[in-house]
């Protein structure tokens, strides 16, 4: 029996970083406000005091260059963790992330390893408007050379982040900002969760729901409600988009014959499009219903909560959409 403890999502992230910094002196963290403030989202609390200025580095607002610096560190013996506050800001560092970090190993014919973790956040719901609320992971998935992690719960976030930090390839680790203050049960002590292993959060026989990031948790809640209506929903959290655990997803869809996907990115060129076409050769003859999905509509996120919340995929919308498949 694993002993559990209660922490927030932010604390779980912080614990993972702390444990890995204690374990390996070459691990360092850099980014905006990671120092004395302890991280904009409180994911680095106490690290500055514990590890000092060289290992916990506040940077200027120069995303492209401090991300580029982390690449220089990673190919010369260090194991940096970089925090980019929002995926929206990652666009400023797109050259270093997508042209340099993702490709340097390949371009050099495998001469270097790139043990580098880039942490960033997605998610709407804070009235942060169009440039602090986007979920832009699909853009990053387009470029070969990155491993991409979208943890749902705090327990997964901790275990997957520790794996990311130990990984000898660049990892884009995408946290959901609406989760940071939520409390969760996580196992006590150290543990890791491997990449490429989807998590079946709820077993069911009528429909498979593949939901990314915290939508996986919302899908479980929606599934409990749908259960009362006699609809038995299986919820799968892919955990990592690259690599994708195709086997687990395919097995589930073969069992249920129905597929629903949910992701908080914009609907057009959403990651769910890629998942469906990727799985299709293996599931086509098992489907009893065309795959459906719930994403963010193709408009920028507005400021007013009155405008913002109706757009965001949530438990209620999931419930309604899935119910409609069965009850019309």
């Amino acid at each position, binding site marked *: 029996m694993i002993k559990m403890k209660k922490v927030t999502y932010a604390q779980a992230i912080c614990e993972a970083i702390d444990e890995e910094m204690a374990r390996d002196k070459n691990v*360092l963290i850099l980014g905006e406000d990671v120092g004395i403030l302890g991280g904009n989202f409180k994911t680095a609390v106490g690290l500055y005091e514990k590890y000092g200025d*060289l*290992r916990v580095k506040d*940077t*200027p607002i*120069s995303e*492209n*260059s*401090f*991300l*580029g*610096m*982390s*690449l*220089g*560190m*990673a*190919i*010369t*013996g*260090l194991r940096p963790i970089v925090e980019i506050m929002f995926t929206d800001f990652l666009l400023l560092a797109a*050259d*270093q992330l997508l*042209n*340099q970090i993702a490709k*340097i*190993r*390949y*371009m*050099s*014919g*495998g*001469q*270097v*390893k*790139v043990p580098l973790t880039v942490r960033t956040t997605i998610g709407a719901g804070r009235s942060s408007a169009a440039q602090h609320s986007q979920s832009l992971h699909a853009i990053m998935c387009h470029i*070969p*050379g990155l*491993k991409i992690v979208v943890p749902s719960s705090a327990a997964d976030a901790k275990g997957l982040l520790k794996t990311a930090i130990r990984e*000898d*390839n660049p990892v884009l680790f995408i946290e959901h900002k609406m989760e940071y203050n939520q409390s969760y049960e996580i196992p006590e002590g150290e543990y890791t969760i491997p990449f*490429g292993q989807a998590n079946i959060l709820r077993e069911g026989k009528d429909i498979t729901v593949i939901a990314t990031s915290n939508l996986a948790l919302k899908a479980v809640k929606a599934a409990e409600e749908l259960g009362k209506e006699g609809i038995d929903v299986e919820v799968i959290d892919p955990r990592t988009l*690259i*690599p*994708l655990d195709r086997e687990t997803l395919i097995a589930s869809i073969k069992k249920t014959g129905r597929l629903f996907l949910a992701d908080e990115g914009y609907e057009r060129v959403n990651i769910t499009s890629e998942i469906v076409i990727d799985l299709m050769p293996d599931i086509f003859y098992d489907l009893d219903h065309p795959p459906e999905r719930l994403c963010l509509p193709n408009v920028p996120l507005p400021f007013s909560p009155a405008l913002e919340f109706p757009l965001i995929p949530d438990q209620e919308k999931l419930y309604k959409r899935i119910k409609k498949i069965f009850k019309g």
Partner: protein
Amino acid sequence: MMAEVLGRKDGYCKGKGGSMHIMDASKGILGANGIVGAGIPIATGAAYSAKYRGTDQVAVSFFGDAASNQGTFHESINMAAAWKLPVVYVCENNLFGISVDLRKITGNPNIADRAFGYGIPGVAVDGNDVLEVYQATHTAFVRARKGEGPTLIECKTYRQKGHHIGDPGTVYRLKEELEAWKKRDPIKTFKARLIKEEIINKEEVENLEKESRKLIEEAVQFAENSPFPEPEEAFEDLFYEMEGAKE
């Protein structure tokens, strides 16, 4: 190096990088870059790493005048200055970014002056004078190793050819300017100086030139004898420890 330029299997990067991405990590050469100015933060990070690991290594970042107008130039120098990183920024100012004359796109074409804004030394040298370049580099290295931080060295020079094969380089610059700079070719002038100061004689120079030519010919021969990579190799080297590009 020649094998890489010719896209062969025995090239430094197994034919995956070419001249734009040439790298020999075993010698500390962390890669040329296809994106103007993108190597500057990478070198700056290597300097941070040297400081972090407590070595006496110094990172050197080479770039042209055009790169000095990228944000990475300013952002990186700013951080290196703030954290006193052991890095030397070497700007080869040849006055042209492909066809664009630096004097037409910059208020002050003296790149070294920009160092002042970041609180570090900025040294402009005659980039065609080998000893002047050496002296400035030496001073910058001493400063970096003492923990006093970065230096920006601007080597003023001129591009004698076009930007790439197929660019004669005639449309956008004056013939007189080019001819004047050709007379100041660093190899020619340094050779003349060494002979004049009797450090080396003509015969020794000829032997050196012969040796160099032979070395290059051998490199070309080696490259031409090297096979092209197999098409399947395109799927290798994406991730460490993984079988090809499959995920």
